[in-house]
């Protein structure tokens, strides 16, 4: 069941109606049943249930055991056991192919003819999300941040709450506990706000992301035909496609949850206004960043081994350098994990892992140098033009890394990079170009116009969002304006939504992760 489909619409409507008409103390049971149906419907296999139970049952019982043993050795043993079980099954189901690929690579390096066949990806929708959520649940109980859930069915709801199973955001037990099991009255204002958010998300996906996607897909699938300006445009369009798709689906998810009365943490904060890659990752997929910081990065940095490394470096290189070495080492580990989590293929490890790490280290090392050079040359850093340059630079760096993320192999990514450097801008002066191109790329002049207008609307909304909650401001307007805009948005989705031929209008780029 895709987030944008008639099936999901009906599913949500039934869930919402049932949720608000039954006695409030049973509301959480409706959510649990909906979540089970959602999981099962998406994967249509008995393995779905087995897989989910394999995570739920150990997490539940170990959670109970850990609770009385917070911050003790005994508690730690239960915690480690829980993490091994959850990570173990995640690796088995999701990442088995990367081991096979690595084995094949080693065989190739050793000039052996042996090749292992890849295993059909049997990873289930939601598994990456609920695995990480349950790890955080166990760690939080161990740390004493939250108490364990006594009722296994309530625990099951926390693990499988349906809106977040396709693309997050990651939740923490302490943050959602009260909302998830609490009693909620239907609230018109809240429902309207949720509805606006859902519409905005659908607009981003169907009007913007799908159109950009048609172009990007054509270029990436016919690499030998396109070069120069076409390739550059595809490379530049992909981050926007990914963003409108991913943040759009998050909007739909947050909107549904808002109507239900369950507050979820924000996952995006206008990432394309970031001045550095470091800042970008504080604004993009925020809940994954927080998860990694709380459960991997901080414990790693604070570990005795890293502190030992810090001390040794201090003696050898002095205080300033010593501080950086454990930091970079921990960052490297974390970024490799992000790459692995994103899918495990080498293209992901490079694109959404190692390259991001390199950018961040370079930023950290070069920032003081750049400041010195700028002050010598008399370049002001605190002016609009300089900030604009930084924002564009961040976008370009991210777009560059995303070439690897989007490409099917490292060779393909290198091929694309090489083909960006072909001069063919003059083609655009050729009249014939405008008749032939729409047929090849599947976007005609009308599509391009719609796309540009939609991107301008997106940009304006984002500019407004920098100064506060756009929906709050919107709801304060007069009723005629409010409903005018809402209808305009609805009709824009219906008329300009892109349900292109042969294009799966509902395939979310991020749902695979």
């Amino acid at each position: 069941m895709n987030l944008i489909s008639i099936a999901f619409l009906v599913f949500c409507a039934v869930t919402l109606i049932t949720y608000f008409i039954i006695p409030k103390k049973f509301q959480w049971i409706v959510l649990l049943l909906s979540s089970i149906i959602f999981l099962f419907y998406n994967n249509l296999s008995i393995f779905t249930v087995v897989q989910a139970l394999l995570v739920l049952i150990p997490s539940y019982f170990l959670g109970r055991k850990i609770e009385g043993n917070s911050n003790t050795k005994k508690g730690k043993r239960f915690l480690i056991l829980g993490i091994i079980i959850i990570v173990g099954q995640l690796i088995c189901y999701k990442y088995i192919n990367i081991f096979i690929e690595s084995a094949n690579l080693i065989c190739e390096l050793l000039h052996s003819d042996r090749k292992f066949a890849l295993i059909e990806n049997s990873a289930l929708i939601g598994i990456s999300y609920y695995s990480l959520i349950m790890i955080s649940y166990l760690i939080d109980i161990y740390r004493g941040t939250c108490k364990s859930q006594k009722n296994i069915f309530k625990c099951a709801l926390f693990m499988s709450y349906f809106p977040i199973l396709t693309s997050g955001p990651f939740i923490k037990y302490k943050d959602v506990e009260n909302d998830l099991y609490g009693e909620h009255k239907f609230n018109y204002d809240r429902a309207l706000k949720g509805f606006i958010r859902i519409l905005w998300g659908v607009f981003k996906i169907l009007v913007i992301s799908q159109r950009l996607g048609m172009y990007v897909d054509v270029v990436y699938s016919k690499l030998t035909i396109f070069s120069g300006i076409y390739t550059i445009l595809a490379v530049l369009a992909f981050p926007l496609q990914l963003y409108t798709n991913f943040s759009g689906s998050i909007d739909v998810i947050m909107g549904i949850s808002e109507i239900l009365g369950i507050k979820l943490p924000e996952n995006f904060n206008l990432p394309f206004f970031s001045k550095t890659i470091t800042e970008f990752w504080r604004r993009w997929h925020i809940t994954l960043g927080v998860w990694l910081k709380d459960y991997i990065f901080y414990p790693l940095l604070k570990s005795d081994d890293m502190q030992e490394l810090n001390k040794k470096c201090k003696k050898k290189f002095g205080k300033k350098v010593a501080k950086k070495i454990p930091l970079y080492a921990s960052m490297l580990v974390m970024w490799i994990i992000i790459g692995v989590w994103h899918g495990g293929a080498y293209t992901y490890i490079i694109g959404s892992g190692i390259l991001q790490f390199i950018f961040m280290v370079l930023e950290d090392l070069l920032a003081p140098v750049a400041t010195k050079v700028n002050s010598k040359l008399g370049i002001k850093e605190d002016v609009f033009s300089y900030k604009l340059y930084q924002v564009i630079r961040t976008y370009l760096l991210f777009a560059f890394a995303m070439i690897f993320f989007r490409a099917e192999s490292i060779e393909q990514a290198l091929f694309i990079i090489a083909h960006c450097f072909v001069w063919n801008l003059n083609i655009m002066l050729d009249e014939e170009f405008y008749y032939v191109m729409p047929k090849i790329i599947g976007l005609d002049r009308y599509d391009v116009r719609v796309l540009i207008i939609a991107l301008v609307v997106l940009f304006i909304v984002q500019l407004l969002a920098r100064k506060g909650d756009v929906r709050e401001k919107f709801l304060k307007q007069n009723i005629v304006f409010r409903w005018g805009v809402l209808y305009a948005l609805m009709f824009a989705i219906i008329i300009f939504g892109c349900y292109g031929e042969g294009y799966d209008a509902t395939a979310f780029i991020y749902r695979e992760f």
Partner: protein
Amino acid sequence: MKEEIYERLNKVFRDIFDDEEIIVKPETTANDIEDWDSLEHINLIVAIEQEFGMKFNMNEVTTMKNVGEMVDIIIAKTR
């Protein structure tokens, strides 16, 4: 006792953030000190642990909201 802790904290903060002007107050947060980001947070925590001879647990590291809360934990643990 609190004044003494704040004095010692000032020393640690100045050392970590290389800024002799820093004076921390109970309501000081990461937003008030330019370089206090998530990366520098752990260096600060470890330096404070060494200064006061105590250990924060990870729950405290990730949930403390300002210097005031930090000082409360230090007092509780060094008593």
